């Protein structure tokens, strides 16, 4: 069942978004622009190598994926595009090739390493501005 869904998902998303089947889809928070099509597979915004004309450092024939992502996310109505500013966690490389629909339904795509999850919860609790004032950032990880 799961492989069948992965095949269907790929058939639908490949032509539309050039989906790379990372198995942890974030299209909804990137203005429906797949960050895995960035040659560096960056999930949190553009690198510093974007060229003057907005083209990609690695492949000048393409527009920076994140230039498109920000542009599209900001044009979405209401708060639909706000997700673009969220810190997305590292990719779980084990999910490559699996169906993100299945992983969404089971919650598998939201499983995080304990260290990251604790840091995310701490940031959520304190709010960025308060978390920031002075000194090294420290995150308490429950043992």
């Amino acid at each position, binding site marked *: 069942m799961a492989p069948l869904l992965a095949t269907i998902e790929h058939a639908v998303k490949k032509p539309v978004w050039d989906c790379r089947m990372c198995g942890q889809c974030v299209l909804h928070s990137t203005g429906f622009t797949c960050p895995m099509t960035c040659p560096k597979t960056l999930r949190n915004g553009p690198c510093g190598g974007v060229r003057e004309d907005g083209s990609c450092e690695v492949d000048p024939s393409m527009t920076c994926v994140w230039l498109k992502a920000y542009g599209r996310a900001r044009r979405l109505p209401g708060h639909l595009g706000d997700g673009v500013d969220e810190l997305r966690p590292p990719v779980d490389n084990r999910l490559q090739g699996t169906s993100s629909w299945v992983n969404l339904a089971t919650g598998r795509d939201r499983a995080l390493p304990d260290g990251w999850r604790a840091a995310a919860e701490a940031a959520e609790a304190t709010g960025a501005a308060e978390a920031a004032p002075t000194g090294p950032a420290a*995150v308490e990880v429950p043992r």
Partner: protein
Amino acid sequence: MNLAELLTAPEPHRPAVTAEFPAVDGGGLEAVAAHAARLAPYVDALNATDNPAAHAHASNVAVAIALRRLGLEPVLQVACRDKNRLAAQADIAGAALHGVTTVCCMTGDDVTAGDEPESRRVFDLDGPQLVRTAAVMAGGAYLSGRPLTPAPPLFIGAVENPGAPPFHERATRALKKVEAGARFLQLQICYRPERLSAFCERAEAEGVTPAAALLPTVALVKGARALRYMDTKVPGISIPQDVIERVEKAPDEREASYEVSLELARDALAQPGVRGIHITDFRHDETLGRLCSDLGLPTMRSAPGEDAVAV
């Protein structure tokens, strides 16, 4: 006063100066000491680079430890291009073991920028994710949650490019890094002061500053050829043609390019949230000292430690 103290004091004591340490390939620790002796009097910390411009060199960790042994403060650059998350954490923990606790996290330029473009690019993490990974380590755990005891007292920074598109999103991306744990941001070389000031103003409005200290980069170059090279060959850096021509047509190119750098440095230091400058010295001469002197910054620091460089 170390870099963390300088950059996080509620009232800035004076602007901080950091500089890129030249890439080292061999020559033993004497080679490191020779570069260090030239730069040390003028800087608070030196960046131990991580395969800059995608060229292999003596490793960031090795050079950082060497600088520490010389009594200087290294900034350990960690890039995402060549190493996965395991290796990045190992480098940070390993360097901290030697007292290297200032870390600057970056995505890194692509392998195609270097002399081994056939390499596999890694990018297992991206820049903001690496920042948070370092913050997790500073909190006493690896990314997995496995305890890291005692927790390394890391002072974590990142980079941002105020001069590359999408200009109006650069501050929001910087904010993401601050939220992840960055407390200083070394900014890419920028020859367009209007872009730098727009970035700094937006960074202030977004709350990037004063949470994080901004350190714009100023390059010291020999002449117009270097400017033209940067403009055409380094993605993310754009230099106005009139600046290049001004240097090119000057009777003394070295002097003219120095004047350009001095103007940019003065302008950078006047921007909101800026707490120092970062220097990339392509001249390898006495210019850094002259720049610090002209900016009214200290030009004579002592280096503690037994085998410290004489400054």
